[in-house]
């Protein structure tokens, strides 16, 4: 029997460790270090201590990015997770549902930038179909410059996000619902429970764990959102759709504030991790074990 050789282990583990440390771990440590410095990308950096962090906390635009992203997260929880759950409930109760399952997932496959460019065209006030549809329905007074109006821009982005990802959550929930054991549901049906109450009182509690993962994905993904925001509005008009990542990219790559941008990136990352952690704690405390 051959023992495990040192060289064998090294050959197997080293490539993954090297690439990963080179492109993720080292830059991560470097970003933390940079967040305590003042640096414009050239010349020598100077020590800033917590200066970048205190500046970030009093930066009114940066602070506003958190309220925008909070609105975005709440909206996407409704338009993606909740709608996805409802769609999955409908779809799993139908016999011939393959077409719907395939059709609703199509947008998830496509690059976000491609989707954003397409929706920029849909929202376009000259040739976009949204205003054209409103006009053909006689609703001209509801026409808007959707992405250029401070009142509608953020909601337009949430809407596009919902268009893409409701199908994603639908797929997650459909898979979970189809895995459920049928005996419990059958016996409830024999007891005379209606489909609606079976769905809300039996099925939803049974897929609780999947639901909490879905909520977590939606929250952490929302906090990191960039592609849609960058292409559709680039944070405008007047910073009303500015989110942490677009703001961070601007401070580093437009204003050349490397230290400040790094502090912003650490704050956002820590906020994301803290939210995930708190969410898990809350989940553990409130979990009711459903027996099946």
């Amino acid at each position: 029997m051959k023992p495990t050789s040192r060289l064998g282990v090294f050959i197997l583990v080293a490539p993954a460790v090297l690439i990963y440390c080179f492109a993720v771990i080292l830059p991560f440590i470097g970003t933390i270090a940079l967040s305590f410095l003042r640096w414009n990308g050239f010349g020598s950096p100077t020590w800033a201590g917590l200066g970048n962090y205190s500046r970030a906390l009093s930066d009114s635009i940066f602070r506003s990015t958190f309220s925008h992203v909070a609105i975005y997260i709440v909206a996407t929880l409704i338009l993606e997770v909740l709608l996805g759950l409802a769609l999955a409930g409908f779809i799993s109760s139908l016999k011939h549902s393959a077409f719907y399952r395939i059709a609703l997932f199509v947008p998830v496959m496509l690059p976000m930038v491609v989707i954003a460019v397409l929706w920029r065209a849909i929202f376009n006030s000259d040739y976009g179909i949204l205003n054209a549809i409103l006009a053909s329905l006689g609703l001209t007074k509801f026409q808007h410059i959707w992405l250029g109006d401070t009142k509608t821009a953020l909601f337009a982005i949430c809407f596009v996000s919902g268009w893409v990802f409701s199908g994603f959550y639908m797929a997650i929930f459909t898979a979970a619902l189809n895995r459920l054991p049928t005996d419990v549901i059958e016996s409830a049906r024999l007891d005379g429970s209606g489909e609606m109450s079976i769905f809300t009182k039996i099925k939803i509690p049974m897929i609780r764990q999947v639901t909490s993962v879905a909520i977590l994905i939606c929250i952490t993904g929302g906090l990191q959102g960039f592609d849609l925001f960058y292409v559709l509005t680039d944070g405008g008009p007047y910073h009303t759709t500015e989110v942490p990542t677009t703001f961070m990219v601007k401070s580093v790559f437009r204003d050349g504030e490397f230290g400040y941008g790094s502090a912003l990136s650490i704050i956002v990352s820590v906020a994301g991790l803290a939210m995930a952690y708190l969410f898990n704690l809350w989940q553990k405390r409130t979990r009711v074990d459903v027996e099946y």
Partner: protein
Amino acid sequence: MIRRRFLHALIGAYSLFALLPLFWMFYSSFKSNAEISQTPLSLPHSFDFRVFVDSWRVGGVGKYALNSVIATTASTVLVLVTASMAGFALSRLRFPGSRAVFLLFTLGLLLPIQSYFIMQNQEFDYLNLKDTRWALIIPYTAMGIPLAIWLIKSYIDSLPKELFEAARIDGSSDIQTYRFLMFPIIRPALVTVGIFSALGAWNEFLLALLYVQDESLKTIPTGLLSFSSKYATDYRMLFAALTMVTVPMIALYVGFNRQIVAGITQGAVKG
């Protein structure tokens, strides 16, 4: 019965809502620019496919697609090879530091791209990696590795121990076991990992935007964005380009929808 019809109507309408924008994009590429701006909803009168040839050749969509294929294939193959080797070692071999290595990779599941891209940008700048193919292949590989190792390791953990013991008693070295025994049997895990990392690389935008300014090296997301500003008023070219990058993906998806949906949802839920 009525209830079922109602549900079909409801979900049917929603599916239409999901597909309508794509359908509009597709048929608009056959209309003239004047038609597109004057009657955005109307269907085309004729089908002229030359606009696709134009945006593929003159507009550079073909070039962007090739660059995306290269970056995606290279990074996915690298993820599959390196992560399956490391995942195998972390699951089946005992060696000093294995726990620390595993924790290091687990950390990667938690770190968002925002927590390291600024310094990664400096690193790549310093090493003159920007505007080369490696500028995207390296980070896409590195970002795919943690989840890949996690999925592959838990898959191997679930396999019977005796399988590997037997190979070892027969005198096969760890690397031989990896190549001839493990690689074939973990195929299901590799499919999931492959789909997840390939789509991630294919769709990635932020790093591609920062690291590749050279037009001839841009991938589909960044290339399409510069295409859309170059042809901002040539609507049909834009719609043709959008159609050409989406239709092949939709075709691929319809063909393999079961594996793709499973790959994406499993990857996302477990990550």
